[in-house]
């Protein structure tokens, strides 16, 4: 009998549990976000998501956007797609008018739904490279350099570093062996034909905790003039360590955006160990931005210390970028519809009007249009030097024609 009772009790709790749903506040705009705090990319998730929340809190503390407060709902998707889909539906039910998506497979899975439901979603620094084409992907906004732009920019940087010409030079492309890692390959191939350099790619199978053979191959056999590192999660730090062990100078290595955080430097053994490593950023790195000081002041005003997540400036600032662009899009939408609560479609139009919004350099000079949802593919290079990230270049974009041609070619 007790077994029956327990079963019924459990079932009842579950049923009561499903009758959820928050009441919507009329002077609040709902934004939904997904995060990965427990899956393979949790190192990123646990910093980016608080950053988004912090920015929204900052905006709300200053009176909101055109009089509306922003309610930000965050859900963890463990980097799993069915979870992401279910959470999307839940946030839609809660009235979200725009979404911050997390994860490349999730972006692909949600693309159709976002378009059908007319809710814009952002995927900064990951997602589908071809989604910079706003006509084909109307509701998907990379709002930051896609993998293609990143690859092109890395090649441009190497070209500048090697004296302006790549003819006859050797470049090694080290990548994480999954679809996101494969993405820059077509662009690199196109650029190889264009610029005349030799390219060899080295795959690092997930989870990328051990890549001795590849690094040895690079350092001793292939001996390239430069290495492009497109790795995620644990592997960037492992790579840095391996380069050191194999004796390959880190000043000849550039990491793409997800191989470029303080975390990777720390895990590789600290700033001295990673001295010289170049990193590609799509959001400014470091503490030297007014918006960060404002957030710290906000915490102090509440009598709390700024959280430790702020120290991971690279990833934290990316969260700020993501949130800031959503806020701007909502601001544009409200201004355009005369002060009413915006719909998803209006926010999407709001995104497409964003230009010259730089948060004093944290955000690149993006220009998002209905055709270009990427904003131009701007990146900035920072180098690990003297215990922190030092700005090496200004915001630049590279080979836009090559990237545009690839976008056109993509199915």
């Amino acid at each position: 009998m007790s077994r029956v009772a327990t079963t019924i009790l459990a079932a009842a709790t579950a049923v009561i549990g499903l009758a959820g749903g928050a009441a919507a506040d009329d002077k609040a705009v709902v934004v939904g976000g997904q995060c990965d705090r427990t899956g393979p990319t949790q190192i990123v998730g646990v910093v980016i998501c608080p950053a988004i929340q912090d920015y929204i809190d900052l905006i709300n503390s200053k009176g909101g956007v055109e009089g509306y407060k922003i309610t930000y709902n965050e859900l963890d998707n463990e980097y799993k797609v069915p979870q992401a889909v279910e959470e999307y539906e839940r946030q839609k039910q809660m009235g979200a008018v725009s979404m911050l998506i997390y994860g490349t497979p999730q972006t692909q899975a949600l693309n159709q739904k976002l378009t059908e439901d007319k809710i814009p979603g952002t995927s900064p620094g990951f997602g589908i490279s071809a989604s910079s084409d706003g006509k084909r992907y109307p509701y998907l906004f990379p709002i930051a350099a896609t993998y293609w732009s990143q690859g092109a920019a890395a090649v441009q940087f190497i070209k500048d570093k090697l004296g302006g010409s790549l003819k006859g030079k050797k470049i090694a492309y080290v990548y994480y062996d999954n679809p996101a890692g494969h993405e820059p390959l077509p662009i690199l191939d196109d650029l190889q034909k264009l610029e005349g350099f030799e390219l060899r790619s080295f795959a690092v199978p997930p989870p990328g905790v051990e890549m001795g053979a590849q690094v040895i191959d690079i350092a001793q056999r292939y001996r390239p003039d430069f290495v492009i590192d497109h790795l995620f999660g644990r592997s960037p730090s492992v790579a840095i360590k391996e380069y050191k062990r194999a004796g390959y100078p880190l000043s000849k290595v550039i990491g793409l955006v997800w191989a470029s955080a303080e975390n990777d430097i720390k895990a590789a053994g600290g700033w001295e160990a990673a001295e010289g490593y170049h990193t590609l950023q799509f959001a400014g790195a470091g503490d030297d931005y007014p918006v960060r000081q404002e957030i710290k002041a906000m915490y102090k005003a509440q009598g709390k210390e700024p959280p430790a997540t702020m120290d991971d400036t690279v990833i934290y600032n990316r969260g700020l970028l993501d949130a800031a662009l959503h806020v701007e899009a909502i601001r544009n939408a409200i201004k355009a519809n005369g002060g009413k609560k915006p719909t998803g479609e209006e926010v999407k139009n709001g995104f497409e009007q964003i230009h010259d919004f730089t948060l004093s350099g944290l955000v690149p000079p993006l220009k998002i249009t209905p055709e270009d949802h990427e904003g131009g593919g701007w990146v900035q290079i920072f180098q690990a030097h003297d215990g922190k990230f030092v700005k090496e270049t200004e915001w630049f974009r590279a080979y836009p024609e090559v990237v545009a041609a690839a976008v056109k070619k993509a199915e």
Partner: protein
Amino acid sequence: MFHREAGVFKTTYAADMALYPLPIAKWAVAAFAGLFIVIVPLTVDEYYVSILNLILIAVVGALGLNILTGYTGQISIGHGAFMSVGAYTAANLVVRLGAPFWITIPAGGLMAALIGAVVGVPSLRIKGIYLAIATLAAQLIIEWTINHVPAISGGVQASIQVPRPSLFGFQLKTQTELYLFLMFFAVLAIVATANLVRSRIGRAFVAVRDQDIAAEIIGINIFRYKLVAFALSSFYAGVTGVLYTYYLGIANYEQFQLPVSIDYLAMIIIGGLGSILGSIFGAVFVTLLPIATRWFLESFGALVFQQSDLANMIPNLRLILFGGLIIFFLVVEPEGLNRLWRNIRNYFRVWPFSY
């Protein structure tokens, strides 16, 4: 009183072996059908329908795995890989040939069945845990192959976009329309499995599981039946993969990796090995678990913990709960939720005359 077996007499063998011998069973099925096929789509909110859709797809997958692991006793950790085989087959057919769903779904299943049979070949020589490890290898090798063969995976992105299924020119877009679409296949799978396990093949499967040497002696070709089990189970998995593809609009192997295989194993263990209702229970349970934990912690956790800590804690507590529940069910109720249900049903068999 409800589950009255007295007074029901059969006069033919066919009637005796029927799927629903008792009147109450027939009423119960009709009621469920009415509830889920008619009432739910008309009244329930889209969000909950989307959860039901995920459950329906999981039911098909769980049934397939139960055929292999529950009824035939072969542990398989490669279920996810067969799903991705089905998914990519269907996606390629749709994108290259424009095939409609009533071709792609069986095609995806058949392709997966073929690969499943190949993976089952080692079962000639190895059993038990060794076979399980071989299926693990199969999972990883299939993933690797899809990742590295652009002809299958559709390019470096390894994902293929697929438009929603269309029926007589009408495209199924909303959650409710997809719900009916998926419900059709889930019911088909349930009925097919129910008939399968009562048939000769089903009995052979159980014989292989329980006493394979004795079975061989009385003339059952156990190798052949193991292959059939692998193939059938993979067929279900392939269909599940295609259904996911249509539901999400995209085929991507990253959705079908090792954690998914483990999820399905958890479904059938928690639900009950070797039973159809068990597969359904398990699918419901495992799919709802993350959602329910999140709801629970969001509502009550705020009383105890800080908001920011909570966001970090919820996903981890979910993992702990998932693993903990698996262990709990293994230790306390090895036959899973199905046994709990049987207990309830047995209680009502003689109610109110329990003496």
